[in-house]
């Protein structure tokens, strides 16, 4: 049986695209795998999936997951089951900037719901949707561990804290400007690992 049929879900369709890391990224990935004892390279799965998501299209397509499986010597299902468990891994195509608004307890007490409503209004999309220009995806997330500076959101894991509607407007304006120059707002996962 072809493994594109293992999971009966529209997201799990194999397109058969060739994907691979840049040579310098591949080197970093191989270094990461050495951090774990011999025979335990599966441990590198989460960090490698972060890198793959970032470098190979912004989400984990079946092709990307299969590629990661082959790098780590895993069965594809071992990657799928992990990718579907963790909320930071995306299985759908995302906008260039993923805006994740915290909606848990302390943020909700401090105006997080108004921030989300404001974003919905400004972007004219609901949580889970992407703007038609492909620049923004809006998401709600659970506690980001920034309760003392609530309300808070992350743009591709970059924190933006003590938000007001005015600050959100400025942020969107900045990001639209960045998008024109194809700029990311944060350093990549690969750069984080020394």
């Amino acid at each position, binding site marked *: 049986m072809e493994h594109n049929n293992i999971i009966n879900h529209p997201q799990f369709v194999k397109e058969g695209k060739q994907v691979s890391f840049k040579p310098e990224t591949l080197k970093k990935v191989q270094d990461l795998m050495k951090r774990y004892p011999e025979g335990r390279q599966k441990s590198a799965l989460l960090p490698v999936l972060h890198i793959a998501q970032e470098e190979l299209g912004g989400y984990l397509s079946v092709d990307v997951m299969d590629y990661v499986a082959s790098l780590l010597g895993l069965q594809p299902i071992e990657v799928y089951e*992990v990718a579907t468990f*963790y909320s930071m891994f995306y299985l759908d195509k995302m906008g260039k900037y993923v805006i994740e608004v915290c909606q*848990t307890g302390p943020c909700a007490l401090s105006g997080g719901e108004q921030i989300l409503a404001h974003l919905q209004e400004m972007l004219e999309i609901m949580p889970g949707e992407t703007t038609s220009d492909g620049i923004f995806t809006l998401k709600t997330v*659970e*506690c980001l561990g920034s309760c003392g500076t609530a309300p808070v959101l992350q743009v591709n894991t970059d924190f933006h804290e003590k938000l007001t509607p005015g600050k959100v407007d400025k942020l969107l304006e900045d990001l639209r400007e960045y998008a024109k120059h194809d700029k990311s707002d944060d350093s990549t996962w690969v750069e984080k690992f*020394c």
Partner: protein
Amino acid sequence: MGGKVLLANVDIPGIRGFDTYRAHGGYIAVEKALREMTATEVSLEVHKSGLRGRGGAGFPTGLKWSFLDRKSDKPRYLVCNADESEPGTFKDRYLMHHLPHLLLEGLIISSYALGVETCYIYIRGEFKYLVGVLEKAIKEAYQHGFLGERILGTGFSLKIYVHPGAGAYICGEETALLESLEGKRGNPRIKPPFPAFKGLYGCPTVVNNVETLAAVGPIINMGGEAYAKIGRGRSTGTKLISACGHINNPGVYEIEMGLPVEDFIYAPRYCGGIANDKLLKAVIPGGSSVPILPADLILNTAQGEQRLMTFESLAEGDFESGTMLGSGGFIVLDEDACIVRNTLNLTRFYRHESCGQCSPCREGTGWMEKVLHRIEHGEGKMSDIDLLVRVAKNIEGNTICPLGDAAAWPVASAIRHFRREFVYHVKFPEVVKNIDHGAIQSDTELLIPDSGTGIKYW
């Protein structure tokens, strides 16, 4: 010393870098431990300090270390739990952001004491920027000979690696964390066997919280007995409290255990009182999982004694009238906060974060959310309130890991202490539907004119 142990040097510019940290007494504890003490002596100091786990459970660290299977010929591991995701808690993030070397010192000394040669810092994926901070600090420590082969010319070698998670609250539970570190879904393991015998890769493993490990360096510097003199009773030392919600000064504070809760809330050097001159309604003092207490019970126990910031005092009265110190995520709610809405919010969180292994938690959290949702939106029935209590009771204690308890306690305690607010939501659906939340303002508005259906709890 002003009660500060961990954060004594936090305001020094550049303390995040190795040179500044070293110039202010950094790594002296490592030198002392490795050069002058045996591994057993280090463990003994930690034992004497009375240090208790700072992640939420408050289990004595020395005792946890003593369980480690030292007879096994397998490698041993130390795993630092930096998966801080308990709502209301942001102390570990603060600590790692400002004092990464303090954590590394603790890791080096603890690894020496435990006979560990490889150590992993499991940090939540959302703290990606901290991965860079920690990696840089680790690199500096290698460069200065505090990590790597034969540290300080002794026979002790250590490697430390940072490992990011990917967004799952459950991975803060130590066995789920180990599963995740092995590259799997974060499903907690059945215990026993405990990680001390079968942990990472089936090897003896100790998992400690960031703040717990950060305290090890200062304990070695000052001596376990001196550390135990700080604090009160069995709650020794200092605790980082992350305060948030409706207060004037949200932030991370290091307090000496035993500080009265009232001082913590109202003193200008701590929370600075309730924001906008409102009144205090309730506090969730140890992260969202611990029982919520109304103002009178958080300031004083049911016996009328002043409530203190210690494991024991906050738990005074058990679940009838007490709560827990937990992780120190101190969430303050003012008089305008709607308890039903807050409880619904937290229940949604637990439903979302349940790993799905155990039916009581997987199904129960969803049921509680649905019932709370209809009460909050003016569609509840009076029987729903006791239904919630029943569901919560059936989750509690019936799951592999404590997430089930963590989901049940906020609901059970909110109804126990604020039942009339739930009753109000059911009795006045039109009011609830039409108000902009936060508008149930004063206590008098909550007085219900006709108690009606035999509800006798208020």
